[in-house]
C-alpha cells in the first residue's frame, strides 16, 4: 500500500493544442470551411484514440469570423470531446480578438498549469485581419508563458496575409504552409496531428517535432 499516493496528482500532464480558425465569409468558398471542419474532426478523433501516450492531449478551438472572435471549444481533453460543433463561415476576419483569447488562455495557470507541456498554437487563415491585431500578436509573442508556445501557421489561397502568417510561425522546422486548395487543409492538419501525437508518446514531450507533410496525392492516414 503506497503511503505517498495521496500526495500525487491524479491527472496526466496536459499537452494543449489551440487552433485559431478563420471563419470569415471567404472561408465559405471553394469548400474551405467544410475541409476545415473535417480536418479538425479527424484531428480530435485521432488524438482521442491515441494510445501509449505520455501526455494528455487537450484541444481548444478559437474561431474568428462574424463580428468577433469566440472560444468555440474550451480546452478539453481530446478523449472527452463528445462532439465538435461544425464551424460556419460568415463576416469579417477579427484575428486580433482570437490572439487575445489565446494569450488569456495560455497565461491562465488554472487552465494551463505549469506542469503542462508547452502548448501548440495552430493558426489557419485565408485572408487579411481587419481588426487591430498587431498589439495582441505582440502580447502573444512576448507573454511570459505564451512566448514559449510552438506556433504553426497555414495560409489558404492567394488572398491570405502571407507576411503575417509567416511571422506567426515560430518553428524553424515548420515554416508557413501555403494551401492552394481545400484538400491541402487536410494535409496540414495531418502533419500537425502526427507531430503532436509523436510528442505525446515521446519520453521528452516538450521537444517540438518537425511538421512532415504527407504527399499531396496521399489518401491514406495511418498512425
Amino acid at each position, binding site marked *: 500500500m*503506497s*503511503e*505517498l*499516493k*495521496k*500526495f*500525487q*496528482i*491524479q*491527472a*496526466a*500532464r496536459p499537452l494543449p493544442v489551440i487552433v485559431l480558425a478563420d471563419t470569415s465569409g471567404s472561408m465559405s468558398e471553394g469548400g474551405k470551411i467544410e475541409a476545415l471542419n473535417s480536418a479538425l474532426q479527424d484531428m480530435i478523433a485521432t488524438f482521442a484514440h491515441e494510445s*501509449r*501516450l*505520455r*501526455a*494528455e492531449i487537450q484541444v481548444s478551438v478559437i474561431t474568428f469570423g462574424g463580428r468577433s472572435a469566440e472560444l468555440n471549444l474550451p480546452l478539453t481533453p481530446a478523449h472527452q470531446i463528445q462532439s465538435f460543433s461544425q464551424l460556419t463561415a460568415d463576416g469579417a476576419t477579427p484575428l486580433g480578438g482570437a490572439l487575445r483569447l489565446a494569450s488569456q488562455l495560455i497565461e491562465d495557470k488554472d487552465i*494551463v498549469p*505549469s*506542469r*503542462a*507541456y*508547452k*502548448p501548440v498554437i495552430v493558426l489557419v487563415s485565408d485572408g487579411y485581419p481587419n481588426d487591430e491585431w498587431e498589439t495582441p500578436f505582440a502580447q502573444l509573442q512576448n507573454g*511570459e*508563458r505564451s512566448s*514559449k508556445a510552438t506556433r504553426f501557421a497555414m495560409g489558404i489561397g492567394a488572398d491570405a496575409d502571407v507576411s503575417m502568417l509567416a511571422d506567426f510561425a515560430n518553428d524553424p522546422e515548420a515554416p508557413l504552409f501555403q494551401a492552394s486548395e481545400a484538400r491541402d487543409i487536410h494535409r496540414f492538419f495531418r502533419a500537425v496531428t502526427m507531430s503532436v501525437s509523436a510528442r505525446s508518446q*515521446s*519520453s*521528452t*514531450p*516538450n*521537444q517540438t517535432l518537425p511538421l512532415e507533410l504527407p504527399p499531396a496525392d496521399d489518401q491514406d492516414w495511418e498512425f
Partner: protein
Amino acid sequence: MRLAASGARVIGPGHLQDGVVNQDAMGVYGVSQGWCIAVCDGLGSRRLSHIGSSKAVRLVKQHARQAFAVSAQTLGQAIRLSWLEHFGTRYRDYETTCLWARVDARGRGQAGQVGDGLLLLKSRGAFRVVSAARQGFGNQTDTLAQAGEGLWQTCEFELVLPGDGVLLMTDGISDDLIPEQLEPFFDVVYRRLARSNRRRMRTWLEREMHAWSTPLHGDDKSIAGIFRTDHKQ
C-alpha cells in the same frame, strides 16, 4: 545530535519504453560528520546528460567539504565552475539541473537549486518551499551551466527540532505532487526515515516511486533528504 539521510532514484517509464538510460543522478554522502545530498536531472534533449548529472552530484560531494564560512551562493557557483571546467566547450551535450544540500554535525545547513525540481525545508518547525515558482511549462528548465548570479535559489538554515530537515527531488516527482500537500508529504518522508535505516529507506522510496500513481507519468524520479531526528542538546 542525530541526523538521518537517505535517497533513491528510479528510471521513468518513458525512458524504459525508449530504452534510454536514467538521466537523473542522486547522491547521499557522509561529509565531515554531517551529510551532503544532491539530485540532478540531465536534460532529456541532450544525449550525454546522464554523464552531466552524475558529474554534478560528485562535484557537490567534493565541494561540500568546504567550510561553512563559504556561502551557499558561493558554493553553488564553485560547483558550476568545476562542472563547466570539466566538460569544457562540449558542455551543451551534458546539461543538467542541480539541487544540493549539506548539514554539518551541529545542524547548520545550506542548500541550493538551479533548474526544475523542488527544494523543501523545515527549520525550527517552520516549513517552506525554497524553490521559485516555475514561469514556463513542464520540462523547460534552467541548467547548471546557465546558473550565473541570480539563478541559484539558495538558503542557509539550522535543524533544531526533530522533524526539521531538507528534502530535494527532481521534477519527475515534484511536478506530480499536489501543491497544497507538500508539507504533509515532507512529514511522511521524515517519519518513515526516522524509523528506518538508510538502506531500508532507499528500498521504501524506490517502491513508492515505482508505484507512482499519476496517469501517464514518464519521467525519471530522484529524491534525497537530511532530517534531524532528536532534540537539540
